[in-house]
C-alpha cells in the first residue's frame, strides 16, 4: 500500500504531471486524427524516451496510450470516421446521435464511459495484476479458437433483420483474412506476388478506407445533390454535453458491463480491443432488446467506449506481471522498459516495484486528466467541423487518410489499399451491407485459424480438445447460445401470433 501512495506522490509532482498531461493531450490529438493511432505514435516516441528519465518516459507513453483510443471516438461520433480501430463500433450509435443534434451528448457519454472504464481497469491492474496474469496464461490454442468463435457469433446477434447481409459480409471478411502467408505452413495464399500481401491485408489502411475515404465519397455525393437541388443540408447542432442524472443512472450498468468485458479481454494477450468493443456492444444489445440500437442510442456509445479504455490498462496486466505484451501497442512498452535498463519479466514487480507501480498509478491519473481535456477538445472540434464547408472538410479528410495510410508502412501501396477499401466501403453503404462484421471477421479470422490448427497439432487431430478444456467448452456453448438467440426470438414471435 505504501508503494501506491509514494507512486501517487511521484506522479503528482508538477513536472511529471505536466509530462503526463502532455502525453494525454498528444494521445487525444493523434487518436482524433484518422490514420494516426497509439501504436504509430508510441513507435515514434519510444526512441525519443532514450534520453529521458524513467518517470518522464513512462508518463509520456502512458498518457498517449491511455487517451488515444478515447480520442478516436471524437471523429467517430462527429464524422462517422473512427479515429482509431477501437472506435469502430462507436460510429454506429455515436454518429446517429450527432445527426439527431445530440453530438455534444454523445461526446459527453463517451467521455464519462471512457474515464470510468479506464479507472476500473486501472484499479484492477493496481491490486490484482499478478493474480490475473496467471489466468491469462490459461489461454492456449483451443481457448483462442473458441474466443474467436465467440467474437464472430456476436455477428449473428447483431443482425436483427439483416441476418443474411451480415453473414455475407462476415464470410467476406474471413476470406480476406486468409490472404497472406499461412501461419502454420508458411505457404503464401492469394498474394499474387505482391510483397505487401505476404503479411495479409493491413488492417489500419483498410479501416481508413472503409470509413474515412468512403465518407468523403458520401460527402461529395451530397454536394452534387445540393448543387442540383440548391438546398443545402441542415447542419446538425452540437447540443448540450453532460447527460442528465436519470440517463447517467440508466447507463451505469452498461458502463460497468463494458468495463468488465474490456478488462477481461484486455488481460488475454492477443485478444485485442476490437474483440472487446464488439462483445460489449453485443452484450448490451442482448440486455436492452427493446432499444432501437443503431439509431442513436446512448447505450450504444457507452458500451464500446467503456470497453476500449478498459482494454488499455487490462493489456498492461500480462506485460507488467509476466513480460508478455497484451497487444502491439503495449509491446512497445517492452522496448521502453529495456531502454530504461529494466528487464521485462516476472521479476519486474519484485526487482523494480517502483517502476511497475509508477506505470500503474500513471494510468489511473491519466484517465482522470483525460476527461476534462477530452471534453474541451471534443466540443472545440465539433464546432469547427460543423462550421467549415463540406468541400474543405472532405479535402482535409482525404489528406489525413492518405498520410495516415502511408505512415502505417511508409509505402505508397498502403494508400492504394485505403482507396480500394474506400470504394468498397461506399458500395457497401449503397447496397446496405454493414461494415462492422467485415472488420470483426478480418481481425478474428487469423486468430481462429491459428488456434484451430494449433489445437489439432496438440491433440494429434482430435476435435475433442475443444470440448475437453473447460474454458474453451464454455465459450463455445455461449457462442452457440448467441447464434440461437435470433432463432428463439423468431420462435417466440411465431408462437405469440399463432
Amino acid at each position: 500500500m505504501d508503494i501506491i501512495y509514494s507512486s501517487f506522490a511521484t506522479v503528482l509532482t508538477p513536472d511529471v504531471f505536466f509530462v503526463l498531461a502532455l502525453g494525454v493531450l498528444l494521445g487525444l490529438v493523434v487518436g482524433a486524427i484518422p490514420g494516426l493511432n497509439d501504436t504509430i505514435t508510441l513507435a515514434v516516441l519510444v526512441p525519443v524516451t532514450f534520453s529521458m528519465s524513467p518517470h518522464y518516459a513512462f508518463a509520456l507513453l502512458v498518457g498517449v496510450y491511455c487517451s488515444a483510443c478515447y480520442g478516436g471516438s471524437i471523429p467517430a461520433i462527429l464524422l462517422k470516421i473512427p479515429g482509431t480501430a477501437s472506435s469502430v463500433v462507436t460510429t454506429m450509435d455515436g454518429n446517429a446521435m450527432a445527426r439527431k443534434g445530440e453530438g455534444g451528448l454523445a461526446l459527453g457519454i463517451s467521455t464519462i464511459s471512457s474515464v470510468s472504464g479506464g479507472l476500473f481497469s486501472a484499479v484492477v491492474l493496481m491490486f490484482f495484476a499478478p493474480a490475473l496474469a496467471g489466468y491469462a496464461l490459461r489461454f492456449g490454442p483451443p481457448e483462442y479458437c473458441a474466443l474467436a468463435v465467440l467474437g464472430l457469433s456476436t455477428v449473428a446477434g447483431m443482425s436483427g433483420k439483416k441476418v443474411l447481409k451480415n453473414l455475407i459480409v462476415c464470410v467476406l471478411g474471413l476470406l480476406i483474412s486468409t490472404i497472406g502467408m499461412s501461419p502454420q505452413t508458411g505457404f503464401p495464399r492469394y498474394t499474387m506476388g505482391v510483397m505487401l500481401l505476404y503479411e495479409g491485408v493491413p488492417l489500419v489502411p483498410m479501416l481508413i478506407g472503409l470509413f474515412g475515404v468512403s465518407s468523403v465519397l458520401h460527402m461529395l455525393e451530397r454536394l452534387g445533390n445540393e448543387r442540383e437541388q440548391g438546398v443545402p443540408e441542415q447542419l446538425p447542432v452540437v447540443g448540450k454535453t453532460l447527460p442528465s442524472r436519470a440517463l447517467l443512472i440508466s447507463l451505469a450498468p452498461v458502463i460497468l458491463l463494458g468495463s468488465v468485458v474490456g478488462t477481461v479481454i484486455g488481460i488475454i494477450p492477443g485478444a485485442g480491443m476490437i474483440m472487446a468493443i464488439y462483445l460489449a456492444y453485443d452484450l448490451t444489445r442482448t440486455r436492452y432488446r427493446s432499444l432501437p440500437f443503431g439509431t442513436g442510442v446512448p447505450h450504444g456509445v457507452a458500451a464500446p467506449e467503456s470497453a476500449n479504455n478498459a482494454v488499455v490498462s487490462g493489456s498492461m496486466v500480462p506485460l507488467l506481471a509476466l513480460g508478455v505484451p497484451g497487444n502491439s501497442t503495449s509491446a512497445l512498452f517492452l522496448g521502453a522498459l529495456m531502454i530504461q535498463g529494466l528487464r521485462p519479466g516476472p521479476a519486474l514487480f519484485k526487482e523494480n516495484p517502483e517502476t511497475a507501480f509508477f506505470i500503474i498509478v500513471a494510468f489511473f491519473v491519466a484517465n482522470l486528466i483525460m476527461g476534462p481535456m477530452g471534453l474541451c477538445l471534443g466540443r472545440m472540434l465539433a464546432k469547427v467541423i460543423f462550421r467549415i464547408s463540406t468541400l474543405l472538410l472532405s479535402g482535409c479528410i482525404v489528406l489525413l487518410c492518405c498520410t495516415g495510410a502511408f505512415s502505417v508502412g511508409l509505402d505508397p501501396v498502403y494508400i492504394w489499399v485505403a482507396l480500394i477499401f474506400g470504394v468498397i466501403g461506399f458500395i457497401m453503404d449503397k447496397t446496405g451491407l454493414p461494415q462492422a462484421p467485415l472488420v470483426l471477421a478480418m481481425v478474428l479470422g487469423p486468430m481462429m485459424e491459428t488456434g484451430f490448427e494449433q489445437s489439432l497439432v496438440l491433440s494429434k487431430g482430435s476435435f475433442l480438445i475443444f470440448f475437453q478444456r473447460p474454458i474453451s467448452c464454455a465459450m463455445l456453448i455461449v457462442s452457440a447460445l448467441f447464434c440461437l438467440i435470433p432463432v428463439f426470438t423468431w420462435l417466440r414471435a411465431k408462437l405469440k401470433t399463432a
Partner: protein
Amino acid sequence: MKRLLTALCFAALTCGSASAFPDKDVKIIVPFAPGGGVDVTVRFLSEVAPKYMDGKNLIVENMPGGGAVIGQTAGANARPDGYTLLAYTSSVVSNPMQKQTSFTYKDFALVNMYCFDPEVLVVPKDSPFKTLKDFIEASKTEEISMATPGHSTSHHLAAQLLEQHFGSKFGYIHSSSSAQQLTQLLGGHVQSSMMALGEITSYVADGSIRVLGLMSDANYAGAENYTRFSSLGFNTEWGAFRGVAAPSRTPKDVVKSLSDAFEKMANDPAFKERMDKAGFPMQVYNAEQFSKYVDEVAVIYEKLLKPAK
C-alpha cells in the same frame, strides 16, 4: 592543364575523404519497428558511437514492413559510401530464400557482429523431461509439441535441424510473435520451445521454465551450467545474430575503418553495461569472422528453406 588540375583536385578530395572517414553522420537502417531487440541494441551502439567515429553520430532510421524486406532492400540499394548501413540479422539471409527480393545476403559487405543470442531448448517447469538426453530420446519415439515464434524463423529452423540430426519428431505450434510463444510455454500448453537465451533469463531465474540445452559452445554470463548440444554430437552454433553491414560495393578501406570503429563500440564498457542490464548476450565478431559465420549459416538455411519454396 585545366583538366589535369580538376583531376588533381578531385583526387585530393576523394583521398582526403577516404582517410578521414567518417566526415559526416552515419545512418543505420533498422528494418524493424522501434522497441524490438534489434532496434534497442542498435540504439545502445549509437549512444557510444560518437566516441569512436570522430564525434560523428550514428543515426538510427527505422524502416519496418514487409517482414523487414523494405528496410533491407533500402540497405542493399543505398549508395555504397559507408554512410548508410543496415542492421544485419538472420532475416537478411532467409528473406531472399522465401520471398521475391531484389537482394541476397551476399549483396552486403559485413562490418561487425555485436550480439549473438544463442538458441536454447526450453520446457515448462513441470515438464517430465529433466535432461537434454531424455528429451531427444523421447522425441525419437513420440511427437513432441514445439512452440516457435513463426514459420521459417530461425527458431523453427533450429528445431528442424534437430529433426534432421537426431530423427526427432515435433508437432509445431507457430505463433506470430515471441510474446505469444512465451505465453504458450508459460501456460504449459506446449511441451517445449526453441527460444533465444536473452529472452528467457528472467523466466529461468523465476523458476517458471527450465533450459534443457544450449546450441553454442561459447561462454555466456549465467549460462555456465546449461548442457551444450555439442555433448550429444550436434555441433552447429545456432542463434540470433545482430550485426552491421554496408552495401557490397562499399570501398574496402571504408569497410575496414567502420569495422574497427564498431568493434571498439561493442567493447565499450558503457555499451556492455547497457546490453547486460537489458539481458542481451554479447559476442563480438570482426568483419572476417562475421562473414565466415554467415556463409556457414547460409548453407544450412539454403538446405532447410529451399524445399519449402
